[in-house]
């Protein structure tokens, strides 16, 4: 098993992100640039899943629900209460974290696929609420007219902004990994009993991972709503939670650079697979299955194996 990125590799991560991040927006335009923007937004939520699943092992199929809380939070506060985006976004993130704290306390006693099912139920419940609390959310018609982030007029400008936010998130993620919190999360996933016996408060560590994931989900949504200027319930259903988890698995479940790579690859997959036409989901499903069977450590794990086939 490849060793995880530690705090020491933060500069390397930053360099790679800068190198890979500076060129594409200069070369791409139009639809491709838009996809790239959406990939960065998704990557923020996927980094949350690195904490929740990659580190702490929570099989979390509700992350899109927290993205939705962030997106709707910003949309409602900016359109109905006329708040500026800059104050609405942090409040929406806190709201996502608060909801995670409330539901995490009972749900995180569950493990494995039981937790997966419970998070699915939670996500679907949020969608039902968003569809039916019409006075607040606009129901199935969604909520439009969300103002953009001040001073960001183009998709390219948004790219620089989102890339800067993502870079900050990655640096915080690397810091988490290099602290007792990151170590405790991984210890809890690797051997819960031994972690508890070593003094790690297992439940609190799981809850922390879940809440941090939700806050990043909320941030992702707070970026999305002003970018799309329009939110509908269907954008945050379980299918999107699955997509976020697939991004994580494709990249490599416990890797910060992997989260970004997975988000970009999966976001561009429909574009690259355009030639298969209506059979897109079949091909995508088979590709995911192949990744699971052939590269269980994701892209990052596969690359690491290529780089050092032997071990010292």
């Amino acid at each position, binding site marked *: *098993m490849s*060793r*995880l990125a*530690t705090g020491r590799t933060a500069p390397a991560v930053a360099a790679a992100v800068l190198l890979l991040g500076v060129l594409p927006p200069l070369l791409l335009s139009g639809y491709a640039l838009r996809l790239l923007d959406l990939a960065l937004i998704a990557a923020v939520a996927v980094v949350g899943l690195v904490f929740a699943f990659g580190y702490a092992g929570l099989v979390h199929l509700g992350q899109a629900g927290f993205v939705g809380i962030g997106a709707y939070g910003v949309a409602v506060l900016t359109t109905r209460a006329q708040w500026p985006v800059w104050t609405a976004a942090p409040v929406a993130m806190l709201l996502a974290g608060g909801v995670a704290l409330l539901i995490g306390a009972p749900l995180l006693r569950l493990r494995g696929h039981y937790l997966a099912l419970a998070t699915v139920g939670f996500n679907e419940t949020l969608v039902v609420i968003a569809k039916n609390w019409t006075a607040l959310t606009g129901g199935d018609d969604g909520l439009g007219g969300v103002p953009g982030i001040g001073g960001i007029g183009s998709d390219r400008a948004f790219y620089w902004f989102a890339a800067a936010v993502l870079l900050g998130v990655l640096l*915080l993620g690397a*810091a*988490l990994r*290099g*602290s*007792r*919190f990151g*170590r*405790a999360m*991984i*210890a809890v*996933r*690797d*051997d819960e*009993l*031994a*972690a*508890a*016996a*070593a*003094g*790690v*408060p*297992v439940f609190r560590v799981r809850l*922390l991972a879940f809440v941090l994931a939700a806050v990043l989900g909320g941030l992702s949504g707070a970026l999305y709503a002003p970018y799309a200027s329009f939110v509908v319930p269907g954008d945050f259903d379980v299918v999107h939670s699955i997509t976020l988890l697939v991004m994580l698995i494709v990249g490599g479940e*416990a890797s910060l650079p992997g989260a970004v790579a997975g988000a970009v690859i999966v976001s561009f997959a429909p574009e690259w697979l355009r030639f298969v036409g209506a059979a897109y989901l079949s091909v995508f499903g088979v590709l995911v299955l192949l990744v699971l069977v052939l590269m269980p450590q994701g892209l990052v794990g596969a690359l690491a194996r290529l780089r050092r086939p032997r*071990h*010292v």
Partner: protein
Amino acid sequence: MSEASPAILSVRGLCCHFGGLRAVDGLDLDVPRGGILALIGPNGAGKSTTINLLTGALRPSAGSIRLDGVELAGKAAHVVARAGMVRTFQNGRLFARLSVLENVLVGADSRLRAGLAASLLRLPGFRAEEAALVAHAGGLLGRLGMAQDAAREVGTLPYGSQRRLEIARALISRPKLLLLDEPAAGLNAAEVAELGRLILQLRQDGLSVLLIEHNMGLVMRLADHITVLNFGRRIASGTPQAVRDDPRVVEAYLGRRAADARV
């Protein structure tokens, strides 16, 4: 209870009943302060259940567990560990995705004070604390002869080193009492001898140890006191010499016939 109490750990009337089965049945146990108590008994005597009860992995049906005067019966595992009673596991349980050094650092979780914000922003307080901890962990690894292994993946360590790494993980929390669950299992003779020296050194440093072990040579050499367990009860307790000559102990291990023959 005061500092002067002779026992660091004092267990009274500990019971664990699974339905009709009495895995541990009214056990009394005292670990002398700064000494080594060995808990021995035939297979199935209840030793593993006892260590699980003491460390909060199992909830006792009845009884009291006092560590330095603090009642710990029924407390969660991490609370017990944070109170100063830390264990190792029979077959070795390490964190496979963490490096050797990080495995040790996890053991210090209870000692760290830096909060989430300080850690994420890598504030000076966090950095200083982390640096001091890494130095401490490095020292421990050096003492156990593993300084050169700090960055390795634990899966690549030889078995003997994995067992020592578990002890390092326990020691970094600066426990009051170390529980060693069959630390010699699977080690070769040289490694057992080295383990024995290590445990004696730790006692010299003032650490109290509860040792569960099948290797009688090691037990007789290290233990200040021995408590013998059978069918979940204490059948004998005393110095190694006294316990060795106790007919009930011989009987428990070898059967009545052998005991009669010896008497």
